[in-house]
């Protein structure tokens, strides 16, 4: 029997079928090519299934109702970091947020992440974000000749910086930070997370340089420990703690 026949032979509402429900998306839109470009709200109501992500509902809108709705996405399971946005006021990945976990009786409010220039609808200019990342020297720095085999690193040394290796550069943390909203010069949590990843790597010899960079007036000291970044991180990184560890390393010079 082919897959098609199997599907056709199933009863209309098989046991275990996922219930469907209607959900309204209230989306902050912006068309840069409009006669007088102003952001506005638009609502769409679509039918969703129990396992659907916010991204699935957005695709339904784009593919069936309004092809001009614009957003970034790629992997659709929380790994590539393309679709960070404000969902009901909180920074999350659209592909990692299930509709059933939101209150379906109220509209799901979708807005671009804050603090970066909006290009169109939910798409923002990521360049300032990546520029901050590049400034912290986010690469292994070593001196001397490279060894012929691998550098040794104990499991404990490896574990020391594990948490910050998980970063996917989605900008959910940085664009949730009130300091970043008011001061675009601030490096922001993501850049500090990526500095942390190397500062605490036993193989790296560039910690002093990175700490010098982050000791800047737009560096770690601007962090006000609001924990927005930790709440926003879709990878579960303890961002605020990582920033605190970098601050401590700056004072104690122990890393």
């Amino acid at each position: 029997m082919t897959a098609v026949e199997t599907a056709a032979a199933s009863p209309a509402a098989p046991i275990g079928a996922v219930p469907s429900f209607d959900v309204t998306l209230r989306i902050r839109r912006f068309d840069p090519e409009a006669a007088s470009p102003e952001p506005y709200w638009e609502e769409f109501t679509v039918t969703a299934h129990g396992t659907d992500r916010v991204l699935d509902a957005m695709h339904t809108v784009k593919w069936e109702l309004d092809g001009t709705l614009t957003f970034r996405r790629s992997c659709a399971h929380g790994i590539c970091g393309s679709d960070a946005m404000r969902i009901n006021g909180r920074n999350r990945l659209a592909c990692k947020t299930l509709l059933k976990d939101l209150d379906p009786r109220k509209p799901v409010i979708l807005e671009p992440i804050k603090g970066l220039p909006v290009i169109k609808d939910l798409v923002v200019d990521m360049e300032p974000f990546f520029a901050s990342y590049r400034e912290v020297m986010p690469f292994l720095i070593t001196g001397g000749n490279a060894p012929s085999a691998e550098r040794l690193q104990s499991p404990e040394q490896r574990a020391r910086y594990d948490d910050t290796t998980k970063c996917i550069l989605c900008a959910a943390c940085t664009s949730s930070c009130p300091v970043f909203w008011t001061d675009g010069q601030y490096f922001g949590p993501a850049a500090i997370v990526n500095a942390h990843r190397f500062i605490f790597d036993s193989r790296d010899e560039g910690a002093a340089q990175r700490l010098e960079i982050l000791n800047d007036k737009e560096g770690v000291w601007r962090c006000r420990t609001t924990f927005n970044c930790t709440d926003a991180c879709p990878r579960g990184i303890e961002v605020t703690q990582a920033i605190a560890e970098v601050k401590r390393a700056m004072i104690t010079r122990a890393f």
Partner: protein
Amino acid sequence: MQTHQYDVVIVGAGGAGMRAALESSGRARTAVLTKLYPTRSHTGAAQGGMCAALANVEEDNWEWHTFDTVKGGDYLVDQDAAEVMAKEAIDAVLDLERMGLPFNRTPDGKIDQRRFGGHTRNHGEAAVRRACYAADRTGHMILQTLYQQCVKQDVAFFNEFYVLDVLLDTDLTAQEVPSGQAVTVAGVVAYELATGEIHVFRAKSVVFATGGAGKIFKTTSNAHTLTGDGMALTLRRGIPLEDMEFFQFHPTGLAGLGILLSEAARGEGAILRNSDGERFMERYAPTIKDLAPRDIVARAMANEVREGRGAGPNKDYVLLDLTHLEPAHIEAKLPDITEFARTYLGIEPFTEPVPVYPTAHYLMGGIPTTIDAEVLRTNTDVVGGLFAAGECACVSVHGSNRLGTNSLLDINVFGRRAGLAAAAYAATSEWVGLPDDPAGAVVGELERMRGAATGERVSDVRRALQESMDANAQVFRTAESLDRALADIVVLKERYRTVSVQDKGTRFNTDLLEAIELGFLLDLAEVVVVGALARQESRGGHFREDFPTRDDANFMQHTMAYLRPAGADARPGATQVRLDHKPVTVTRYQPMERKY
């Protein structure tokens, strides 16, 4: 329109593209064009590991790795290429470590290694620990590490630039160009998403590293953006595609969603069970059981479901059981995939088995290349200055079925080789003139698509294609099912000619690009199905129920598919797929029956 000039242009910024860029950017003026941002590339979704015979935890050597790769590929692997890959694997892993990749470590501080499907000790005796890994985030770590090194080297990236055409100095589609005649690349044409502007990149060397085409199927582990762009546009310019009928279905996709759960789960001890709780792989692969290669496991799973032993209310999946493993061990070694099960299915893998079913995962075929990543336009002629590496290429190191971890290896070994070869070629070659109106074809296509006031919806055509491919060209295939798929594709290609997009703007018009991508998917699906129809045997990832055994006498050869103008009575511009063959390179392993 803007024109740029670089010695080397690399198309794609996943593992293969960035590995190539690290070699070429220090040697030649290099630009990397990507339709995403580099760190969004799908290399980052790879989980389990990258094999290399480091022998850090038990005896191993690269010759065993070569043998496993050849046998895993059901003897369609070019053995000289597999040897290169297995040998260079060791340095490829050490290079990544020196770049800072945070591999998991043994107690004495070396790179740790674990078991993976089809990788064995001494030619199949037992599973061997060969996969170097970083938890279940090995691809993420490779992508991040390569990007970090690109930042360090100040590689020039053009982000969100869609390459839509490759420029050659000779038209390969109009008439046959004799073997021996030089054909040379001149550059590429790209569309800048942010502005809608067209850019022509003149280049001495062009490297395609554009990844896979999983979106020809509905159920897939692949990203939405994996639409086979590089393969499709070289095909349209007359370059063949090799072995496209071989698509890998990964056994453990989350049921109903297709999201990948790494084979590393089974490497760490997880077991596949049917509705009776039976460890059914004992019947299909008595020696290495759940760690048999993916084609065998995927078919076994589909067969269990077909014979009524599927689990769940609709008996349409099997179960991946991790419940007998220590939660601390799972948390340490498989943190991401256990979270996927929790997030997307609401399943707690510590206490409940996870519903899984095969998902379209990896295209073994692609743009044919030599072991130096040079693109072939016939069985023997290379196109001067044109290179390909990674999933979009076919070297062929994977034959008819890729072993787990060998793709992360492939992108590193052949990405590096492509970068070196592209820089070396650029250093010794002359500039080739651009054709008149180099962007004409691309501009015409975009204008037609944007100009159509009303017409078919892109998503309707795409959905119909994906559903037909899932139903007719998946794990089990027959002449009848493939004929149905081909008939569907013919109709869908006609419908595609009348699609229109709603977004008529120039800035960030993803509606328009999705329409263009659908054209790529349709062309590639046709090549997959035509190749699958012609291959009247079963080998690796291609299983024909009407021809259930391997037939070395007639089919121990690569398929070479060419897109050529259809006959004189066809509509102007219509094309058809023509098949030819290429011999398999055999060095030390004669084909044997494949048992595990």
